[in-house]
């Protein structure tokens, strides 16, 4: 009897890229629920426009590049990009900006470098950064979260979200329903020479352990991140390093200057901290390679995010911190090659 031959190994574990991507999307669900509960359904609108745009752009880019679009669309990676971008932008973003940001993320963040696996930068953060520097007003306008006071309701937030999504002028009808994020308010307050206890004492910026609204999203993202670590999708090095890079300097600074420097808990549970630590910085394609490299990479992201939050021109610093460390990856990789057995 004759047989076909093939090279060893003859068996594989059967992990697949789509399975990895699906787990990441699943882990975002708790953060999504918190987001929708506190900020209205705007996230769902952002998600839909981002996903549709991402799939269409991916298909078009693959066609232009003469590649088969079907397997690439099925791998789920472009949906992860869309989700991360939708979670990062304000839920009130008009739809065309969401579409523009997503299209640029997929094209300039991914396909100009050769598609999946080739991009040096995190595509979602490329899209986010372009939007932030181009449309600063729209990119910093958030709904006032429901846990600040009881004066407005979720249905009102839903109407606001739809109105804003289709581009209504928010200043006339919806004044008082929108505002800056907690980190933004603190920045502006500190710039006006208020002290931190004064600002926090108002109660509309931050609560017991974190920023209004964002604290819950961060908590839910942390839960999702722990799920990913438990499933072995994400290893601990990057998230732990990101949090250490952010929290260690903020702990020291807060100890030295409690009137001007945010406490570590507030840093941890405000803005995009947990999303960045567990979902954005952990994108393997644009991260450092070795475990040791990933520690440096994560710590660098946390530290630069802290520097930007403290002294920079933007309220949250994670998008730029991630992009800067993406840039440093070849350098980090060069100096963190693990020791080979026997060498």
């Amino acid at each position: 009897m004759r047989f076909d031959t093939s090279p060893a190994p003859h068996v594989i574990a059967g992990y697949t890229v789509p399975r990895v991507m699906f787990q990441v999307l699943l882990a975002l669900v708790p953060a999504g629920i918190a987001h929708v509960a506190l900020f209205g359904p705007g996230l769902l609108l952002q998600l839909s426009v981002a996903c549709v745009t991402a799939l269409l752009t991916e298909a078009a880019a693959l066609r232009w590049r003469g590649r088969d679009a079907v397997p690439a669309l099925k791998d789920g990676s472009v949906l992860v990009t869309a989700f991360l971008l939708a979670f990062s932008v304000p839920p009130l973003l008009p739809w065309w900006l969401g579409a523009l940001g997503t299209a640029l993320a997929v094209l300039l963040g991914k396909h100009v470098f050769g598609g999946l696996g080739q991009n040096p930068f995190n595509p979602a953060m490329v899209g986010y950064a372009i939007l932030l520097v181009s449309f600063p007003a729209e990119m910093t306008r958030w709904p006032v979260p429901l846990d600040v006071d009881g004066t407005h309701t979720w249905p009102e937030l839903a109407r606001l979200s739809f109105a804003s999504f289709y581009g209504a002028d928010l200043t006339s009808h919806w004044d008082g329903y929108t505002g800056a994020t907690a980190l933004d308010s603190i920045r502006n307050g500190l710039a006006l020479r208020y002290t931190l206890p004064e600002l926090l004492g108002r109660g509309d910026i931050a609560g017991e352990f974190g920023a209004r609204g964002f604290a819950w999203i961060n908590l839910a993202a942390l839960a999702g991140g722990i799920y990913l670590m438990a499933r072995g999708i994400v290893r601990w090095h990057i998230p732990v390093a990101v949090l250490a890079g952010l929290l260690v300097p903020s702990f020291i600074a807060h100890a030295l200057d409690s009137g001007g420097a945010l406490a570590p808990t507030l840093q941890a549970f405000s803005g995009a901290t947990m999303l960045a630590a567990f979902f954005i910085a952990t994108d393997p394609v644009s991260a450092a390679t070795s475990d040791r490299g990933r520690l440096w990479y994560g710590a660098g992201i946390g530290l630069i995010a802290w520097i930007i939050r403290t002294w920079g021109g933007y309220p949250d610093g994670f998008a730029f911190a991630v992009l800067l460390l993406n840039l440093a990856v070849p350098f980090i990789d060069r100096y963190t090659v693990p020791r080979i057995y026997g060498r």
Partner: protein
Amino acid sequence: MAVRSTFPAGLALDAHKQQACGAPIIELPQPPRVALALDQGSGYSAEPVVAVGATVAIGTLVARANHPYASALHSPLAGTVAAIETRDAATEGGRSVCIVIESDGSGRIDHRVRQAEGAASLSPDELIQWLRDAGIAGLGGAGFPTATKLAAGRARGTQTLVLNGAECEPWICSDDALMRSAADEVVLGAILLRRAAGAERCVIAIEDDKPAAIAAVTHAIERQRNAAQGDHDQRDDELTLAVVPAVYPQGAERQLITTVAGIEIRSGSLPADAGVICQNVATAAAVARWATRGEPILSRVVTVTGSGVEHPCNVRAPIGTPLSALIAAAGGYRGTPLRLIAGGSMTGRALPSDEVGVTKAMNCVLVATREDIGSRLGAVEMPCIRCGDCANVCPVGLLPQQLHRAAVADAHDSLRELGVRDCIDCGLCDYVCPSQIPLADRFRDARRRLNEADAMAARAADARQRHETRTHRLLEAAAAEQQAFESVRNRVRQSGDDPAGGTG
């Protein structure tokens, strides 16, 4: 030397061993014909010493080992040499010259096969020579001649002999079966091997998922000590058992040495350089068979398993027996066998035909159906997403994702720097890759190209050297001629006598 208690990473795999390991070893009857591959798995061929038509008996030497990496071959049958021809074989490339012997049914035994009396009193050098003559080679899967390894160990000074009974690869359980049924042979072989290597101690390493084998070997060691009680020369207190974690690839030579001896073997050097020699437990048992019965390697235990056979089992099969006979002993084919694999699912070699003969290196025949290997058959390669799962399992601490880039680019300097030659070909990176990239095969290919390039560079350097030497030689000859000419001319001028007629 760096000390590391365990090698980097590895992975616990589904063992698939219970299928074949329940029943005792089946003694296969002598087949009507055998095909003895001159290359028994080490990659080097023995040289036939019989001609077609020659009459041989059981144990007659039919091929001699002229290369230190080849092993001598003996006929497992009494009969005649029917052919010496290239055939499908379980060797690198799938083809080897084979000596085909047809049985005459007489069962005559060669008179040179005899009681190897007093093996215990032989000197280490004599022992090594006898092992070479008996064609004893690594039965763990490498087929490397035992004598050559022992000689290297003696030359460098050996502290530790590690007997490898880890058997980490999925499906294979021939060593397990052998240790359960013939632990005394393993222990006797261990003592002889230790003496031949001049090692201070011997450690038998068994993975912790083989409790029966561990118990059998423990008892055999105790029996040996009790039997040799009082006889100081025969008693071996330096023979111990080490139970090691069942993590693939625990049984890989360097990885096992690191686990057992706590030392790391330097890249590019041999374990013998670090004072360690590794031998398989089945090899030890073969040494004992030779010492007690005077029998060279004529047969070996082979696991016949997989979803593609009716009754997975272990058989003791004469070397050269066609695999179809082994599969018949396991109840024949079942379902739709898609691959016939010599070895396990991780590193085994897919064979083209079941007429291939058993070799000394063949510890397992895996008859795989879609149930066993469907994951690989259905794999669709996708781009690397640099997830690093491969690096997390690599037992050598390599970065397969970086190596893959270098392999695709055929960047030789990067391949060397990233350690493509340190890769032990265990296949784990391939196994875990979510992009289902056939990494192991890419790296094999890259190593081959690297070797070719190095050979080419060596040839070029050699040619340049030759050219430079020749140029230098010619210049020197010309200079010598010139000098001779001038000295004659000077002499002639000084004497004022010009034999050439004064035109000079």
